[in-house]
């Protein structure tokens, strides 16, 4: 598994379940999640062979405004 950490800007926070369902579908394991207002910080363990799919598919979710992958190993700390 590969640790991936994302800062995700949301249009509405109620898109959160869709994001978590997507992570699970792609075989990821959520290690930490923090969401408040329009910002979500997400840290997951992703299977090596499908790790490249997480960022682009997260960006594809309608109501996700922006996805930034941050250096792995720790939560970005939120805003």
């Amino acid at each position: 598994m590969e640790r991936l950490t994302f800062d995700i800007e949301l249009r509405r926070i109620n898109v959160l379940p869709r994001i978590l369902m997507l992570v699970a579908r792609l075989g990821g394991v959520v290690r930490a999640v923090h969401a408040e207002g329009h910002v979500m910080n997400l840290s997951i363990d992703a299977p090596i062979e499908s790790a490249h799919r997480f960022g682009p598919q997260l960006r594809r979710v309608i109501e996700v405004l922006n996805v930034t992958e941050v250096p792995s190993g720790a939560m970005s700390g939120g805003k």
Partner: protein
Amino acid sequence: MAERTGSRLVLDALHDAGVDTIFGYPGGQIMPFFDEMMDAPFRHVLTRHEQMAVHAADGYARSSGRLGVVVCTSGPGATNLVTGLCTAMMDSAPVLCISGQVPVPFIGTDAFQEADVYALATSVTKHAFLVRSMQELPEVMAEAIFIALNGRPGPVLVDLPRDVQIGTTAAAVPVLSSVPGYQHNPPVDSDALGRAHELLVGAKKPVCIVGGGCRYSQAADVFRRWCELTRIPVTTTLQGIGAPDPDYDGLLGMLGVHGLWRANEAVCKCDVLIALGMRMDDRVTGKVDSFAPHAKIIHVDIDAAELGKIVKPDVAIHADMGVALRAWLDLLGDRPIRHDAWLAEAAGVRDGLPTGDIGRDGYIRPTRLLDELFTMVGRTAYVATDVGQNQMWSAQRLRLDSPRKFLSSGGAGTMGYGLPSAIGAALAHPGERVLAVVGDGGFQMAMAEMITLKRLNVPVKIAILDNKYLGMVRQWQQLYFGARYSGTDMSDNPDFAALARVIGLHALTLKEPADTRDMLKQWWQHDGPSLLHCICHPGENVFPMVSPGVGLDEMMETENGTIDI
């Protein structure tokens, strides 16, 4: 703006979006909407099941480019949408479903016919909305229509509680040119396009794969022009059928697990592969590690998540296929890149399709029947298929003059899609003949829609290839499960022509190989809907075929496509 109900607001928004037809089925929690619809300028099509309403709207949308719309009630009405939504999602069809819902105060109380449709729809739609107040409705409708139609199209669901349907508002529906965060029309990266062009210029054996993106970007004309200038051999995915000019001498046919021999061989040999508006589906690539093993890969798609999802491209271009090709034509200018020798070599390889007599063992061979049928029908008809052998046999043979004319559930592989999608296409194209090629299994999932067809009296011609089996599963059982035919026998099929006649449709039964041409002619030339029940050989298989887990270079074929069972 004058006060209007939520139902009227939705109907007005649909009308403003150019919608003229609404498919669907009423019920308790959508009754206010249906009542308003009686006074609105729409044709309502009552299908006999909500799933079939989605397939019909899907066929309407794929064949026309317009929004397909479905309306149904809450609970079981809405849960019946799920397979249709999944089908539309996998093949990027722009469908909008409006589902009735219990009034907002009742949501979460396990009220009669309440279901969490928003949650159900979330994983099978491009986007879903649950409208919780009248204030939200104008923006939701504007965004729902925009999202369904723009960028990579797809299905959207709006769950509409009863109290929102009857509530009133004076608010207008906004006109949108974008939705926050949604990049629906990305600009072409000229550097990436330049690298792609250089690869093409330097290629000795380039091949193009074109997919469903050609249909949705309305790019057939520019794509055909690009083919003429590059003289590149072209193969298509299932959804790309009809994209190339059917008379193009470099058209290799469909590739993939049931692709034509020459198409798969060209992909295996090519040194540059240009993938346009396609998503590298596993039925296209076979074993990914051995897909196009000698090629530099250029991938153009409007959905960034498709670039590198399965096959890592050497050049990725995130753009609408038509926009990218127009820019590519500018690069080509009046300096065509001709690959004539390679084109002739690639197109000269055999297709691998069976030949020989139409009769065998006293039965009609479905492959040869379809050869006769498609020769008769020509290239201008709309053709819908179901899923399974009937679908692959059709896809291997069809050459159509538009990418909007082939309707088939590719990604989801949904049995029962053929008949309702053909009805949708017939409604979108009045007066044009629409052919539905279906198997006996899939047809039985949708045959109540013969009643819808009778009511509409549109010229849909149904050809049932009845081999008394769930044929594709039987084929796999024969090849990979020791010929143990578990659950695939359909020897008790009814007389489909008799059933059709009970409903009031014109119907014929074709049993004798020698009667094929005459009966096909009678059936096709009948003025109005007509059904042809073809009693087919039970043992004919789809070849060529690539077994699961191997590459496109390991195709199987038999001399006549038939293995005795």
